[in-house]
């Protein structure tokens, strides 16, 4: 890629360092990806267009989709009941293409705060929220969240009152969770569209709380 008018080490207009170009030396695993992909295409198992479309579909998924589901549940008690009964179907009914994913929504209340992990691997509601953050897949999160959830939450900047019970839900490939955060009291007069901006990715994993949009 050509470089236009910037020095390495300088900051971008948004104030962040420029990201390094992705032009490191071709490595063994990248070679394997190219080889596997081309063999599967040559042998007729998949097509190049399918790879392209699948990447586009995954790129289009983001926590904003989950935020719309949560905001809808906050605004419509009937939908909230449907979501808690079958989150997968409720999400599909809102028009989200989440494939065959079995999704379970768990509601945070005044007495219980819920958190999601996958201690065995990296299961995550990826077909609704997009790919998981790196820390979600890390040994540190997977190991510690189940034995010292309050300490881990405090590292995420979240303090849950001692009289609120914490429940950690361990995902599996066949059962993935999304947290329905409690609606902040100061948002009761907002529209559904406005509410969606309060719903963060971390609040749907349970390591965050809804926040006023910046």
């Amino acid at each position, binding site marked *: 890629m050509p470089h236009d008018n910037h020095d390495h080490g300088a900051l971008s207009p948004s104030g962040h360092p420029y*990201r390094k170009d*992705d*032009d*490191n*030396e*071709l490595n063994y*695993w*990248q*070679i*394997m*990806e*190219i*080889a*596997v*992909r*081309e*063999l*599967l295409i040559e*042998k007729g*198992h*998949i097509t190049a267009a*399918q*790879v392209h479309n*699948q*990447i586009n579909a*995954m*790129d289009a998924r983001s926590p904003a989709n989950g935020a719309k589901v949560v905001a809808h549940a906050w605004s419509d008690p009937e939908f909230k009941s449907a979501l808690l009964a079958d989150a997968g179907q409720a999400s599909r009914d809102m028009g989200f293409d989440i494939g065959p994913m079995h999704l379970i929504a768990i509601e945070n209340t005044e007495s219980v705060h819920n958190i999601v*992990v996958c*201690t*065995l*691997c*990296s299961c995550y509601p990826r077909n609704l929220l997009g*790919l998981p*953050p*790196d*820390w979600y*897949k*890390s*040994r*540190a*999160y*997977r*190991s*510690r969240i*189940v*034995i010292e959830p309050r300490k*881990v939450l405090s*590292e995420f900047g979240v303090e849950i009152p001692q009289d609120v019970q914490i429940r950690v839900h*361990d995902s599996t*490939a*066949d059962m993935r969770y999304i947290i329905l955060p409690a609606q902040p009291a100061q948002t009761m007069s907002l529209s559904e569209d406005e509410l969606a901006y309060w719903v963060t990715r971390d609040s749907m994993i349970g390591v965050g709380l809804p926040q006023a949009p910046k």
Partner: protein
Amino acid sequence: MAEFFGKRWHDMGGDPAGDINHDQHDFALWEKRVDALMVLASSAGLMNTDSLRRVLEDMGEEAYETMTYYERWIASVSQNMVEAGAFSTAELAEKMAQVKTRGATYGDAT
């Protein structure tokens, strides 16, 4: 916990561990392609989430500590494809050798 009979390395809930690293990297094109290959090979009936995991878990703890997430995934997808008969190890080796000659970077070789 570690001495509990039947508990394998990947079953890490409750194990002692250090600080959580909150750094996030943007997924590179080759990583997105690995993800797509897993999804499409599954749709084609050549593998599934369980077979992906079985190979990842058999790769062992050292692979988890030394390889990146999608490096481990392409190793597993590749092994699954050989087991499913989608291609042979000889065909894979030949293709990889050929890909390697195309250039110095992923962009050149892909």
